[in-house]
């Protein structure tokens, strides 16, 4: 095994990586960055500048859609954390050894069912002729059928549903690594339940919390199916705007601008989240 053979194999290993990252990730992103700075002034005639970005900020509908997407995504992330943590804690720490694997598997399997099927299930439950409405009417609790689709609460419930497993799985993995003796020591040294939770459990689970939050947030902000199917065609979701500009209106310049803005916004939130919690991408998301 000579030097040159060593070099050759390094080059052979490096080539697919470079092609993949270069051609399929970096170059396309530069591409939308480039097109977002371009403005059409005639057939095959373009000028360059920040005109598209200015147009975005001047148009309240665009601006508000991004803001709405942002706050709902953050809300969904927070809800998923609050709802998911007890479940993860139960699976990792309270459940008996035997039932633990089964419970975890029960969490994992729905994760692999398509978003489409899950959204479809919610539609069948919640629509005016849906299971819940029909049942309530036949039980005499309400007088006539009610439409439970196409409002923000439903969209949020549906989004939390779609992403919560991506919160629970990393949480369970981190919590499982925690030695029970840590908790016992915490109580033994006179900590109340609240202080043990705040000073021992949460700091220990931090990498899992951050990983879960990043994945959850990215999936929510980038989601398309759930908000549109549960929120109706005009649900004002930002990815829908991108689709409209790109495919329906064929305005690639504006669509790219929206894409860049969404990317900047999500990267900013992820970066801030990592910064505030002192974690890095490699210690959280890569572990999964």
């Amino acid at each position, binding site marked *: *095994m000579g030097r040159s053979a060593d070099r050759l194999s*390094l080059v052979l*290993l*490096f080539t*697919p*990586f470079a092609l*993949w*990252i270069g051609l*399929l*990730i*970096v170059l*396309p*992103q530069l*591409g*939308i960055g480039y097109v977002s700075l371009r403005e059409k002034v005639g057939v095959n005639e373009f000028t360059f500048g920040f005109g598209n970005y200015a147009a975005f900020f001047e148009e309240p509908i665009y601006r508000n859609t991004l803001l709405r997407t942002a706050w709902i995504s953050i809300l969904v992330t927070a809800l998923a954390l609050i709802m998911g943590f007890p*479940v993860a*804690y*139960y*699976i990792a720490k309270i459940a008996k050894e035997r039932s633990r694997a089964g419970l975890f*598997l*029960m969490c*994992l*399997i*729905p994760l*692999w*069912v*398509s*978003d*489409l*099927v*899950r959204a*479809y*299930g919610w*539609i*069948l439950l919640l629509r005016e*002729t849906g299971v819940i409405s*029909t*049942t309530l009417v036949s039980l005499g609790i309400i007088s006539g059928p009610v439409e439970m689709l196409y409002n923000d609460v439903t969209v949020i419930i549906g989004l939390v549903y779609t992403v919560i497993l991506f919160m629970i799985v990393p949480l369970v993995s981190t919590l499982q690594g925690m030695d029970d003796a840590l908790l016992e020591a915490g*109580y033994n040294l006179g900590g109340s339940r609240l202080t043990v939770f705040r000073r021992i459990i949460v700091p220990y689970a931090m990498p899992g919390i951050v990983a879960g939050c990043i*994945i959850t947030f*990215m999936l929510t*902000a*980038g*989601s*398309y*199916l759930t908000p549109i199917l549960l929120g109706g065609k005009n649900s004002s979701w930002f*990815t829908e705007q*991108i*689709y409209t500009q*790109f*495919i329906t209106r064929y305005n*690639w310049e504006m669509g*790219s601008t929206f*894409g860049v803005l*969404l*990317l900047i916004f999500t*990267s900013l939130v992820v970066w801030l989240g990592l910064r505030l919690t002192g974690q890095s*991408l490699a210690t959280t*998301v*890569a572990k999964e």
Partner: protein
Amino acid sequence: MQGSKSLVWVFRAYVLIFFIYLIAPLVAAGVFAFNDSMFPSLPWQGFTWDWFFSASDPKVGLLHDDRLLRGMGNSLYIGVIVAALSVAAGTCNAFLFERRQFPMKSLLYILMIIPLVIPGVIIGISILLLASMVANFLDREFGIFLLSLRPGIPLIVLGQFSFLTTITSLVIAARLQKFDIALEEAALNLGASRVRVLTTVTLPFLFPALFSAFVVAFLVSFENFNTTLMLVGSDAPLTITMYDRMVKVGSTPVLNAMSVVLMLGSGLLALASVLAQRPKKAEGNAAAAAMD
């Protein structure tokens, strides 16, 4: 800890409610596949297999619904190709980052993870845009017309490959990290050639991870919607076909039948990948203890 008993019961009740929340939509999507009615809603009209097998008109079952079947065929085709490609690339990446030293390694590692945090829609539009720019350029300058750079299955494959490779790389690298390099040295020492070491020692060790990565990549590809939506051409995969049907035609129980098939299929595959990753040694330990 006084009161911890009741706390455990509160926990249990909560977890139970949570699992009902988790299961309810899946049950709703599944159950109506067997309802002998034209619509997937209550009341219950009796059990039927029609939505799977019936060939006659008012209830065209899944097996006779050509568009859904074609969509499923496309999805399988795309899924297998993408999974194979991303496992191959992921294996190279795993060896590159676990075994080799090169300049700017940590920066490139971050670059490798980045695709996980790019929204799927953006991956879709960026690949669509680049492919179109290249296609237009080739058309204009050389008069070459490349159909594969226009929306369609090749672009869907590229788009899904671009983020699935990150996932497969991480899964395979995690396993490779656990590999004891002394095993390779031992094989060399026993006279094996480099290629033989790879095929008889390293790859068999990696096999569970390769299998898992393949299954995960296949499932994610099969169920992908966001990236695919931007790149789809005339050969729509299943998720797009189902979505179209849902939005344009409205829900019919044949979609529920499809959902049942999807749930069973993905559930079984996911289970297989989980089991493949699990070490099987309880039996062996007991035997060793008995022999000592």
